[in-house]
């Protein structure tokens, strides 16, 4: 187990390094970080000054070393507009995104996994077709479309749910008394964005659960359990479920990361003050360091989360847990 964790750790570090290098390379090679300002018609002298401020006139390798150096020190850049380090703003907004992401994750699991299991258990019947259709629809409707439809129906026409913002609760790092209540308040604000975000992934979850379950149900050991005369409910609830949930959970965890994607647009539509909206703000304000900084921090979060999931997986699967 220990070796497994160490290996995963090493692998994560390599991935992280590659990631930041790729970001560096792509930004420098495919375009011009100053372009955003340039588009709005800033004059050449101004652009030159920014270029100098950001160190873009230095030779590439120098830029790279200072880039990596900054990152190692935890400096992810300074927002041009807000004159604050990106890291600070990001961390301030992070709990909001997490709240949204977790709610969406729960929704996608609650919708997707049971339906996926039902599909697998009643494979090729009417239930299965319903399940497969729902999955297909989920994967085909873009999250922001679902969000807009929800706003139209529940927000504007019916007026049941508040449309914008996250409500008044806030997670303030410096104020521990806000740490716990934050997660439990203002659910009415959370309902629509979380559903819009989770909708796509419930489709993915349904499929993954279904095919994982089908694999397990066709296996030899399930056959043997049935041959032992174990009651069918136990075969499914005890053996089939546990064996199919492990790959489902790992993939679910990875999906959580992809959710970060769609979250950007959802946050913009619902005016949810998370890190996705931060990215959008950066775009609107032509604030390139903000954009790059948010991307870097997101990358860090993802690698970290991947690592945590790998470790958790190691605990659940006895084949890894009991190895050295």
């Amino acid at each position, binding site marked *: 187990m220990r070796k497994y964790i160490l290996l995963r750790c090493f692998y994560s570090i390599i991935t992280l390094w590659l990631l930041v290098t790729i970001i560096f390379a792509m930004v420098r090679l495919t375009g011009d970080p100053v372009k955003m300002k340039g588009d709005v018609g800033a004059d050449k002298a101004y652009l030159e000054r920014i270029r100098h401020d950001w160190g873009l006139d230095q030779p590439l390798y120098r830029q790279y070393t200072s880039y990596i150096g900054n990152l190692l020190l935890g400096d992810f850049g300074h927002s041009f507009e807000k004159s604050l380090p990106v890291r600070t703003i990001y961390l301030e907004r992070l709990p909001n995104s997490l709240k949204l992401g977790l709610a969406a994750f729960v929704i996608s699991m609650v919708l997707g996994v049971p339906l996926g299991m039902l599909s697998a258990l009643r494979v090729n019947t009417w239930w299965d077709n319903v399940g497969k259709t729902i999955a297909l629809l989920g994967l085909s409707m873009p999250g922001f479309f679902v969000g807009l439809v929800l706003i139209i129906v529940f927000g504007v026409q019916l007026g049941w749910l508040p449309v914008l913002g996250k409500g008044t609760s806030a997670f303030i790092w410096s104020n521990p008394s806000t740490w716990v209540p934050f997660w439990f308040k203002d659910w009415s604000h959370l309902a629509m964005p979380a559903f819009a975000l989770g909708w796509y992934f419930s489709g993915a979850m349904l499929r993954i659960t279904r095919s994982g379950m089908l694999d397990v149900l066709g296996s030899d050991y*399930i056959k043997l359990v*049935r041959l032992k005369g174990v009651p069918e409910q136990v075969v499914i609830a005890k053996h089939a479920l546990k064996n199919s949930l492990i790959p489902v959970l790992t993939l679910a965890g990875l999906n959580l990361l992809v959710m970060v994607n769609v979250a950007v647009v959802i946050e913009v539509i619902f005016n949810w003050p998370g890190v996705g909206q931060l990215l959008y703000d950066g775009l609107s304000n032509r604030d390139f360091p903000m954009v790059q900084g948010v991307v870097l921090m997101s990358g860090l979060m993802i690698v970290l989360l991947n690592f945590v999931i790998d470790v958790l997986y190691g605990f659940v699967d006895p084949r890894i847990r009991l190895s050295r």
Partner: protein
Amino acid sequence: MPPLLHVKDLKTHYFGFQGARVVKAVDGITFSLEAGETFGLVGESGCGKTTTCLSIVHLLPPSARIVSGRVELAGEDLVSKSQREMQMVRGRQIATILQDPMASLDPLFSIYNQVAEPAYYHLALRGSKLRHRVKELLAAVRIPSPEARMKEFPHQMSGGMRQRIVGAVAQAGGPRIIIADEPTTNLDVTIQLQYLNLLKDLQRASSVALIFVTHNLGIVAKMCDKVAVMYAGKIVEMQSVRGLFYHPKHPYTRALLDSIPKLGTKEPLFGIPGQPPDLADLPTGCSFHPRCQHAIDRCRSQEPREQSIGNGGTARCWLASQEIAR
């Protein structure tokens, strides 16, 4: 007194492509099994041996159906039972050992958990009584230090050990019949003999009846009292082991015996020419006739009936019938 198990004219077909293609995996099998007897079921891959076993315990894949016939366990027909009723038969009356020890055990549950399951559900054992029984079972299959092994997981055991554990699982419910579907095929040759001896000892101790499915005639010679040879879904010959080996009546049986390589001679290896038939597209008449050296005209047009050949044996062959008639 009725035999312990009596399979009468069992027919199980697989329906593929929405019924357009029917594979007659088991096409009229009849045999019976007495308590304590070891019955061998021999044949090439794909001849229907496994389907027969699954049909007996009524655990077929969705595309297969028992089309007709009876499977009588001490007089009671199993084919007409519901799945819920069969759950009480499986594991409790009839247990099964599968071929691949690596795939047979659930990787996420401990050995104790898996061996205890049949005893838990069929014998309603709990707590320390259950523990005791599991320990007994593991000891009976000669697993060293069963106490420690119980807590471990399948991936920590070798193939031979796992197959022995599967044997313990089979015994756990106290069954009257154990169906072993090619249990030694995936084991190392050196382990095979140990395992077979183990099965024989277990049988002697609990007088359980054994249906042993294999394609290896050597194992049949060692283990079985009675043996049936299957070809293309039918039993083509059934005799006591001595009878089969010394007086085979069906050309297929003779060919199988001839194809066993003999030590000490440099004779060329003998193989049966041709391929086993497609079970969805069987030849007319006797299914074996395209590969049979002694086929006569009647073999090509008429399917042979099961012919009794004395001492309770049967054979499906026109030549054998002719012999009897003389």
